[in-house]
């Protein structure tokens, strides 16, 4: 383990210790620092993550990162979180929001909890925002990884809960485009009859391991949705418009990044 990485994450990153070195959701900074070190070869050599715009993430206070989602397993989420952990100074721990079936997965649920992942419920996200934490959300949800290869980088479903929370708690939303994941590990088929541990389907990847696609992560300008109509935060149209605004910003960022890249593996 890299000593400086451990020191940064274990001591400097803001963390609400609930008394025994864990926060109420199970985050354990030493475990996170170990994961950062273990993930370094993937980040540096295999996916060669290229990141721009990290300065758009607020250095302190609550904020929501909103990204596109793809690939058989959440490698895109892992690389984005690694990117934030390694590159932000002062360090911040992104709290990735996972789908509801994740807590049922043995071993995975415990590992994710130690790395700061939380279930995507209103109470959890509300608590994180009230604590001033950096929350990472993938509004496509499970529909993102379930996309066929021909629909890569096209947003199919777009949940709006993050927009309501951003307005209600007056927090900026940073759109994040992740390019590379959807070609790295494409989905061959979905076995819907096999619902293990409550997952919607069993994914069958096209390749046994992810391909070494070059990952590009672009952070856009933060969007402040509170100006839209804070007093009408319960109005579905207000929320939908705010979510659409973020979706449009993310799609533009994705298009720019796709146009600028020289190739999937270059």
């Amino acid at each position, binding site marked *: 383990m890299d000593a400086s990485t451990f020191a940064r994450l274990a001591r400097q990153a803001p963390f609400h210790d*609930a*008394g*025994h070195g*864990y*926060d*109420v*959701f*199970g985050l354990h900074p030493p475990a996170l620092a170990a994961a950062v070190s273990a993930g370094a070869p993937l980040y540096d050599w295999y996916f060669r993550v290229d990141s721009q715009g990290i300065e758009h993430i607020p250095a302190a206070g609550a904020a929501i990162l909103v990204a596109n989602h793809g690939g058989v397993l959440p490698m895109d989420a892992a690389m984005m979180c690694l990117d934030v952990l390694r590159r932000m100074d002062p360090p911040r721990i992104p709290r990735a929001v996972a789908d*509801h*079936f994740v*807590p*049922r997965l*043995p*071993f995975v*649920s*415990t590992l994710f*909890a130690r790395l700061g992942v*939380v*279930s995507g*419920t*209103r*109470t*959890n996200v509300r*608590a994180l925002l009230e604590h001033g934490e950096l929350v990472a959300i993938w509004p496509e949800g499970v529909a993102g990884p379930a996309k066929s290869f021909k629909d890569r980088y096209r947003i199919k479903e777009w949940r709006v809960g993050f927009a309501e929370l951003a307005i209600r708690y007056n927090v900026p939303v940073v759109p994040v485009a992740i390019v590379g994941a959807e070609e790295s590990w494409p989905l061959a088929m979905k076995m819907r009859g096999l619902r293990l541990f*409550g997952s919607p389907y069993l994914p069958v990847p096209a390749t046994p391991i992810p391909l070494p696609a070059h990952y590009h992560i672009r952070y856009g300008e933060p969007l402040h949705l509170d100006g839209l109509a804070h007093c009408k935060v319960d109005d579905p149209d207000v929320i939908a418009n705010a979510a659409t605004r973020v979706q449009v910003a993310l799609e533009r960022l994705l298009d720019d990044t796709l146009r600028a890249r020289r190739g999937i593996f270059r």
Partner: protein
Amino acid sequence: MRVLLTGATTPLGRALVDTLASSEDCSLVLAVGHEPRLDRSWRSNVVYRCVDLTRGREVHDLVCGDAFEHGIDTVIHMAQHRAAHDRGRRVHAQNVTATRELVLRCTDHPTIRRFIHRSFAEVYALERATSDLLDEEAALDFDPAAPQWLRDRIEADMTVCAHFGGPLQIAVLRCAELVAADSGSQLWDYLSSRVCLRPLGFDPMLNVLSLDDAVAAIASAARSTHTGVFNIPGADTLPLSRAIAETVRLDIQVPGPLLAPLYGLRRRIVGFEFRYDLNLRRFHFGGVIDGSRARRLLGYVPSHPVQWPRAWWRSLLERLADLRSESGA
């Protein structure tokens, strides 16, 4: 403040009686238990009554007689049947009927103004879609297949909640598990064994409450004028594996389906109270209660860590080590 307190002979009850009786703002404690006689001395401002709360006539005489004569203005109801394996009508009467009768008698009472009901965080449903953090809006566990221990506590909780909005100021305190000896704590029983089995692949977060914090929370609620449901968390939030390590027990992970029969066998052979079916979801999905409302309105902040169960010889060794370090300092 003049307080009527049920469940006064439990460890929590005794501690609460002592705390209230010695505080300046409490002039009288009417302590109620089911033991006919107690071998302990109470303070001069404590009156003890032996009452069978399952008998409606005795509850009536307690509330309309003793409570009225002593000018009781606050009732703290903590009496619950503690043994998790017991069931039947008598247990239901103690848990639910007594609660219903008591809160009914307190409503429209000439002197009683405030009713505090000690409930349990176990009433919350722990499922895959549940938040890791449970606030007062979280769903309750209405599974009809749940053990009576749990169903009774939910019914008692709902019975008291049904009286919100009336003349009586009611506060329902959903307390995290009180980890202390003789308190009916499932975790205390579980951690008292030399070997602790837990589900393979799961290490959920738990929040547990110490006796001192429970006393502080209930006393704060008694003094407050705020009403409603309040989650009362403890100062210890930690993974199950860490709780096992705190008690220096052997931690063995076992495939989940084996745990219920193994603990059932343990109960038959050794006679412990721990029920795995009562703790199955907690041992997989965790569930930590959010105490922000109690902090904001009651001023309750947990600050006393739990005294974990230890083998007597280990406690002795730790005490000797402390004495040695103190004498060295």
